[in-house]
């Protein structure tokens, strides 16, 4: 393909790949980045919330020209049953700061911008090229990649696997497992366009302020999953995701799920009259800490979703992807500066750096959460939301029933649905997993 040797080849131009390629190129390394999409972002789907801090560590002045939608001033959490939601919301004027902490973005547009930065930093970026395999030498060391272009083999000292959640290359080369159905969620999403004034009026916003809503409950039909509604400037991202194993066992269809979410009486008024311009779907790694594979080896490192670095509890993925990409690049740069070879031993520096970062610390904190939510999904996503909603309605509806009698009935409904042991057990399990 290209008769040149590179210091590093980066597979994928998503969040992790762009962070790695940019950081390597910035430091003067000779970088080739390969992306299968027509352009960077063509294959990528996200909610999407951008966490400024992690991007700032890579491109400090990104706010000057990055395509940002709205900075977030409010977050709503909804627990839903079929006709109601019980909500918690936090809004603060503190978020109207000079350098806001979180923004909504439109992922494809953001990736195009990031990719231009990678090119400007000096990397050679080639799109419309699918990497079909890794090239290994006799000792099993990765020395390059094969692509679907004519004469499509290219060589480098190190390959950065930033290929995302499916991880075809990594799993086919035996560097990681194929994701299992109960450790990966399928999310479907739509882009609903509305005039910005309509969005601002419906969500109580001024100017570039934004709101996000995270929703759980009966909308996922008892499956482990969540819905989301994110405000952009002139559109609303709306979607819902559940574990693939749950789709498999329930026979629920993803498109039916998103339709029901849209028709919910709490959601419908927010998107009324909108024009849908895209329907997308993507997987999200949900296995957490225990699903993280080996992150480095002779001639390779793995970053982002490909390495399962995704915090499903907090819906953080892109920031872990960017951080792991940056740290992998910094480790490679250090090895290179010492003129050392890209052996597993030398590249273990990357693992050390990521263990010391928030990425591993956060994932470790929630290591028991995925298993809990997955095995208890009916309680957390069906029974409790219904009970809470019933209790709220009883609390608010004034109908002459004495309050003591109402409270007794509420308590009884919780106990009969889950039993004292069940309730106590869930509380302990949740507390343990959260700790």
């Amino acid at each position: 393909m290209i008769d040149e040797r590179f210091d590093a080849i980066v597979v994928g131009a998503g969040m992790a790949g762009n962070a790695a390629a940019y950081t390597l190129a910035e430091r003067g390394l000779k970088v080739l980045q390969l992306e299968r999409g027509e352009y960077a972002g063509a294959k990528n789907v996200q909610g999407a919330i951008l966490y400024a801090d992690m991007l700032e560590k890579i491109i400090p002045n990104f706010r000057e020209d990055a395509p940002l939608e709205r900075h977030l001033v409010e977050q709503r959490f909804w627990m839903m049953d079929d006709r109601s939601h019980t909500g918690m919301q936090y809004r603060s004027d503190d978020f109207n700061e000079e350098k806001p902490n979180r923004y909504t973005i439109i992922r494809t547009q953001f990736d195009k911008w990031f990719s231009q930065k990678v090119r400007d930093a000096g990397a050679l970026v080639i799109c419309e090229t699918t990497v079909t395999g890794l090239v290994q030498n006799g000792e099993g060391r990765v020395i390059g990649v094969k692509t679907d272009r004519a004469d499509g083999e290219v060589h480098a000292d190190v390959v950065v696997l930033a290929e995302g959640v499916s991880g075809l290359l990594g799993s086919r080369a035996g560097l990681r497992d194929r994701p299992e159905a109960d450790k990966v969620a399928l999310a479907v999403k739509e882009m609903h366009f509305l005039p910005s004034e309509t969005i601002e009026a419906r969500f109580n916003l001024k100017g570039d302020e934004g709101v996000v809503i995270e929703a759980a409950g009966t909308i996922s039909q008892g499956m482990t999953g969540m819905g989301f509604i994110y405000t952009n400037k002139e559109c609303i991202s709306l979607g819902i995701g559940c574990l693939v194993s749950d789709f498999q066992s329930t026979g629920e269809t993803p498109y039916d799920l998103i339709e029901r979410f849209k028709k919910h009486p709490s959601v419908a008024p927010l998107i009324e009259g909108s024009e849908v311009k895209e329907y997308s779907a993507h997987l999200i790694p949900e296995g957490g800490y225990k699903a993280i594979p080996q992150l480095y080896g002779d001639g390779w490192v793995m970053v982002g979703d490909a390495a399962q670095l995704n915090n499903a509890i907090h819906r953080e993925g892109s920031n872990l992807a960017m951080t792991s990409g940056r740290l992998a690049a910094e480790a490679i740069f250090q090895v290179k500066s010492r003129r050392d070879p890209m052996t597993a031993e030398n590249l273990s520096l990357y693992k050390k750096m990521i263990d010391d970062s928030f990425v591993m610390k956060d994932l470790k904190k929630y290591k028991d959460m995925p298993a809990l939510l997955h095995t208890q999904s009916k309680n957390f996503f069906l029974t409790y939301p219904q009970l809470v909603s019933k209790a709220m309605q009883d609390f608010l509806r004034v109908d002459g029933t004495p309050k003591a009698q109402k409270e007794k009935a509420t308590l009884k409904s919780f106990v009969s649905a889950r039993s004292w042991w069940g309730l106590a057990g869930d509380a302990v399990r949740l507390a343990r997993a959260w700790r």
Partner: protein
Amino acid sequence: MTDLSVRVEDKLYQNRYQVDAGKVHIKVREHDTPTAPLRALLTACPARCYELNDKGQVELTADGCIECGTCRIIGEASGDIEWNYPRGGYGISFKFG
């Protein structure tokens, strides 16, 4: 179910695809009666690419595929599905993502 199928097609209609004529990136193993994983794909695929034909076999029309990878997760281990990415540049191109 009938009105659902209309809806999925309507949804996909908004999307932008570069079709690689004559090349399919996913293959279904030949079968007489579908296995459990194959049957699961009838409902799990978000683009409804899998349908039963009149002989009761699971058939794939990959035109609307959004390359989510779900069918690979469900069907590759059992050998029911052979899954690859489309050639570079082909397939879905998201405008918003």
